[in-house]
């Protein structure tokens, strides 16, 4: 019974991790940029959702879409105005730039939202399936996470813009020759990354207490998920997220909670060396 509960916990956690990492993975895969801003965007999404719910009485599910759209615009602007100009530079430059943007965003968040932990309280209850407990809000979060992931997958596969993104990811020069406006596609991609971060942040706010200093924690998870799963693909993030969720849950059970986080990072380091393309075998940039 304990073990079934352990697996259930792991899977629900894993779905959230997948959703958390997907935007980060997309940006890394397509733009070749390690987006240090990702964690803060997530926190921003969470706080905006909370503010809409708490101060204006907007249902979090509705707020989620508004917040996601707002973050898309923010992401598009950041990429178009700033990152596009250094996108071809070495990883050191892009990583440092996004880190600097993170400092700015973090500072404004701590001034406007303060660091008080907040939570969207929905009280959806718990399903008790013969001793296995499944909290409904987490289940809903998981379903939402999977829906968003599925939606992104379809968009990337079917829509014009999605196919353009995939084309740029595969071969930038060729995509340029085919008349794709790479700068625009870059900005759209970063926008989608921010959108996914915002939406995930909204989901997280329903499940977790949000504080402004969670940004680096989220970012760390995104790193691990990407390395485990493989870069720049929806499947990769999904596999990576679920594996990380299960590893943390199992390690926490058998080794004790002290080692849950260590196990995740250790797995990342091992995979980095043994299988840098991740479990799904999608190859990233060198």
């Amino acid at each position, binding site marked *: 019974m*304990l073990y079934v*509960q*352990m697996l259930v*916990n*792991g899977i629900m*956690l894993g779905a959230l991790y997948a959703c958390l990492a997907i935007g980060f993975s997309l940006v890394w895969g397509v733009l070749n940029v390690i987006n240090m801003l990702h964690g803060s965007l997530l926190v921003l999404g969470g706080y905006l959702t909370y503010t809409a719910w708490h101060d204006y009485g907007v249902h979090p599910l509705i707020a989620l879409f508004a917040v996601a759209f707002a973050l898309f615009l923010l992401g598009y602007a950041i990429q178009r105005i700033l990152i596009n100009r250094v996108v071809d530079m070495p990883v050191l430059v892009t990583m440092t730039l996004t880190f600097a943007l993170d400092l700015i965003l*973090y*500072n404004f968040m*701590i001034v406007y939202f*303060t*660091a*008080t*932990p*907040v*939570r969207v*309280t929905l*009280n959806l209850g*718990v399903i*008790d399936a013969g001793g296995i*407990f499944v*909290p409904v*809000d*987490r289940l809903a979060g998981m379903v939402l996470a999977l829906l968003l992931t599925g939606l992104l997958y379809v968009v990337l596969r079917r829509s014009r813009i999605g196919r353009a993104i995939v084309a740029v990811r595969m071969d930038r020069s060729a995509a340029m020759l085919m008349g794709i406006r790479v700068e625009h596609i870059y900005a759209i991609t970063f926008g989608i990354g921010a959108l996914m971060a915002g939406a995930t942040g909204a989901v997280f706010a329903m499940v*977790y*207490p949000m*504080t*402004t*200093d*969670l940004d680096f*924690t989220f970012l*760390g*998870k995104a790193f691990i998920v990407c390395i485990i799963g493989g870069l720049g693909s929806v499947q990769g993030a999904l596999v990576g997220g679920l594996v990380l969720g299960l590893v*943390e*849950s*199992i*390690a*926490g*059970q058998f080794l*004790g*909670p*002290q080692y*849950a*986080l*260590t196990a995740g990072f250790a797995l990342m380091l091992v995979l980095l060396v043994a299988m840098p393309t991740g479990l799904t075998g999608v190859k990233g940039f060198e």
Partner: protein
Amino acid sequence: MKFVSRHCLWLAFASAIAVMALSGAPAQADDVIKIGAPLALTGPLAVESKKQEVVWNMWVAKVNASGGINVGGKKMNVKLVEYDYQSDGQRAAQLAEKLITDDKVNFLFAPFGSGHTKIVASVAERYQMPLIACSSSAETVYNQGFKYLFGLLAANGASNAIIVKYIKTKAPSIKSIAIYGRDDVFPKSMASGVAEAAKAAGLNVAYNNYYPVGTIDHSSGLSAIKAAKPDWIYVTGYTSDLILIRKQMSDLGVTAPVVTMVAGPAYKEYTDALGNLANGITSWTWWHPAVNYQGVGVWPTTQSFVKDFVAKEHVEPDYIHASCAAAGVILANAIERAGTLDHQKVRDALASTNITTFYGPIKYAANGLNEAGSIPIIQIQNKQIKVLYPDGVKNADLELMK
């Protein structure tokens, strides 16, 4: 020549910044007592640190409005000099040194938490600068032989024994305890301390583990606790950890007749974020607005402090607010008794403190811990904080949780 000009340029730039960085120190007035406060206004400790900032400013305004502190017959105003050390220990030490040598403050207030208090205390000790710590209670901070460090909170060890004894008396059916603590100075010492106290009192410690800083999912730890079926669950951590843990306990159906969490439930944010889930949680704290003391200083009674605070912040104060405001009261009292701002004399006056303030009685042991400190045990009942202990101030009885 080309190279010369290039390096001159660099030197010029560097010196320009240097001048910029080092200039602009405010002019110093002689009749002001300056108190330095390194604060963690950003970073993980921001919530707690902002509370310190609020009450210290409140205290300064109150003292100055009443004419200042009497230093050997001369009334002097107080000024707070604060910096943000961003919850970064290295920074805290650096800023403490800046406050002492550059801003030439007369006294120091310690930052939030035991870890950073320890760092600042080692700087203060070097400069023989009296340091009042209003939010550290870990014995490991006070057993370093620091002579200039004075705390307010009662020591953790005593607190653990009290709560174990209280729970055993009120709920004799309790036989086993599960302890789940955050691996960080204060919460960790609380968790290990209660484990010892529980063993000493004959309870069976069914589960005892720490979770690392940065854990955002507690399912595995809580599932294991559930399997251990303890009568009493004792969790330590900071507010956001405890909110999450309480929420996940209900998600996973983890219950026990007594659930104690330290040190979140004393704060309003805890109940705000949890709603009905907060009900039934017990905790202990160092101070509660319901206590009623009469004492020295700008706030003659507990009520007068609570009233001032509510008027300004529109919420009830918690123990950090009270102990940090009391830090000011104690310092002012020691200065008045010493009749001078001399560090050594004020330090001696602090050491011989034996007063009651709105916060409670203060009397220092040789190591700088407040040995007169008491700890009210509280329980959230119907989203209100009720005091269960000590008997003098209690307004409710322990309710067991189902």
